């Protein structure tokens, strides 16, 4: 079946602009995660959604970052007033149950000029 998809695959923006990154998880997966992959920082957890529960936002680096998940499926990660240090690959992953494996999307490569 189809895996996790993300769009856009690449995004170039100017410092100070807002961006929205989209994630379509695997159908039926109740858990959804956002991670950031940047040079020198490795892979960092950003936010986690599980069903209708309140999201775990403990990894968001600042209040410029937010995410929502509509209808328990598609998720959007929004970065407001982008900064150059936001340049990274943003990865989305989804999972069906507690013991299950996380499946990753291809990522969105964000470049802030």
């Amino acid at each position, binding site marked *: 079946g189809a895996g996790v998809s993300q769009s856009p695959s690449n995004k170039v923006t100017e410092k100070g602009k807002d961006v929205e990154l989209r994630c379509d998880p695997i159908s039926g997966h109740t858990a959804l995660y956002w991670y950031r992959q940047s040079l020198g920082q490795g892979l960092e957890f950003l936010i986690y959604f*599980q069903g209708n529960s309140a999201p775990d936002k403990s990894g968001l680096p600042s209040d410029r970052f937010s995410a929502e998940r509509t209808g328990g499926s598609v998720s959007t990660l929004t970065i407001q007033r982008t900064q150059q240090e936001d340049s990274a690959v943003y990865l989305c992953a989804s999972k069906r149950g507690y013991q299950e494996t996380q499946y990753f*999307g291809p990522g969105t490569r964000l470049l802030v000029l």
Partner: protein
Amino acid sequence: AQRVTQPEKLLSVFKGAPVELKCNYSYSGSPELFWYVQYSRQRLQLLLRHISRESIKGFTADLNKGETSFHLKKPFAQEEDSAMYYCALRCLGIKAAGNKLTFGGGTRVLVKP
């Protein structure tokens, strides 16, 4: 807080030679350990997890709780093993941890012909 350390950023070996990627973790509770791999231009994918105790593509990893390590080994490296490898940890039994993965910084493996 939990932490995963991969001391080698780059490992270069010749085809047919053994390869060992080191992973150490710090976590006071019960962990679940994973190895993820990212081949060039492909998405991050699970290689193996310690609870499965299986060998994938000739790779094995044993969780050593005494040494808090989960080193990845392969006796005879192949050129197709060239990739980025990430060790990751999940906190078991703590709902607040949300099943998020904590990743190491990654090790790039280059297998030379």
